[in-house]
């Protein structure tokens, strides 16, 4: 199990991409994970499902532009250097 820092960066980019492509209307709402379906009540205990949905939504909003930049850089580098 030999990991390098480069493989860690690759894993991070791939995982963030995977979370960012989950579409709100077409997919998440169909399986009951939409953004408006997580907040059960206004107690002080959001629960794990609500936190997860919050996390997915915030990754989608925050990381959209940086992911575009990073992915473009990755594509260019892989085309040039294989």
């Amino acid at each position, binding site marked *: 199990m030999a990991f390098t820092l480069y493989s860690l960066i690759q894993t991070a980019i791939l995982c963030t991409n995977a979370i960012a492509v989950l579409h709100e209307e077409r997919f998440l709402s169909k399986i009951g994970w939409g953004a408006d379906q997580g907040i059960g009540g206004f107690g002080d205990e*959001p629960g794990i499902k609500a936190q997860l949905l919050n996390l997915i939504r915030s990754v989608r909003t925050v990381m959209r532009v940086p992911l575009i930049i990073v992915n473009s850089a990755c594509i260019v580098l892989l085309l040039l250097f294989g």
Partner: protein
Amino acid sequence: MRMRNTSADSTDPSPLFEDTSGGQGATSYNRGHEKGPGGYPAQTLLSDPMSNLAMAYGSSLASQGKEMVDKNLDRFIPISRLKYYFAVDTIYVGKKLGLLVFPYMHENWEVSYQQDTPVAPRFDINAPDLYIPVMGFITYILVAGLALGTQNRFTPESLGMQASSALVWLIIEVLATLLSLYLVTVNTDLTTIDLVAFSGYKYVGMIVGVVAGLLFGRMGYYLTLLWCCVSIFVFMVSRWEHTHILRHARVKGTLTRNKNKVCFKFHKKLTYKQGRLFPPIKLLPDCFRV
């Protein structure tokens, strides 16, 4: 005293180094500068007003640059916070190492505070520190290299591979812990550096395991690894359950009224969701190592 004088006298004709202070330096300086004013000893190079000014300007520039570097570095890496984690002494390190390998007899896990700031690790054995994790990390890499060497599998590149592997596993573990803490919405006062410190404590157990494996063979390695895994598990659960989580509940004021209920709720939350989640994640890297 007398011996030194006689030895000085005996080495006078052949000195070990050139004596450039005083007359000899003055003559060489005068020979270099024909137009220079007569009788300039070498020390007045420093009292020359122009070079004085240059030296003063240079030292002020250096101190300004140092200030700027410190200020900018402090924005990214909190240096003053880091200094707290390295304020350890030998007794603390010895006791902490003993506690990591045998945490079963320790009763008081509270971190003592001093006017709302945690006491330095030198004075409190329950405070987290970064010295043991850093030293443990480096020692683990060296011991792993030693173990590879005894099996004739050692190359210098493998040492670097072990180092980056261990670093990547540490980063993954800290990220997994952060994610789990976020999902379970436990409000703690654990900072990221605290989590790095706690994740770094496992290197002590791993070193003990590898050394036992070198001394006692395969059986010794597995038995010691099992013992260290259980010890680290008990250490982590005791530390987190008794100090950080419950203290926050006490601050929020809910502990005074329904003490049993909150205790039970947090205990349940911690041991059923978090406790079941973390230590298996923590034990996983140990199992996959050398």
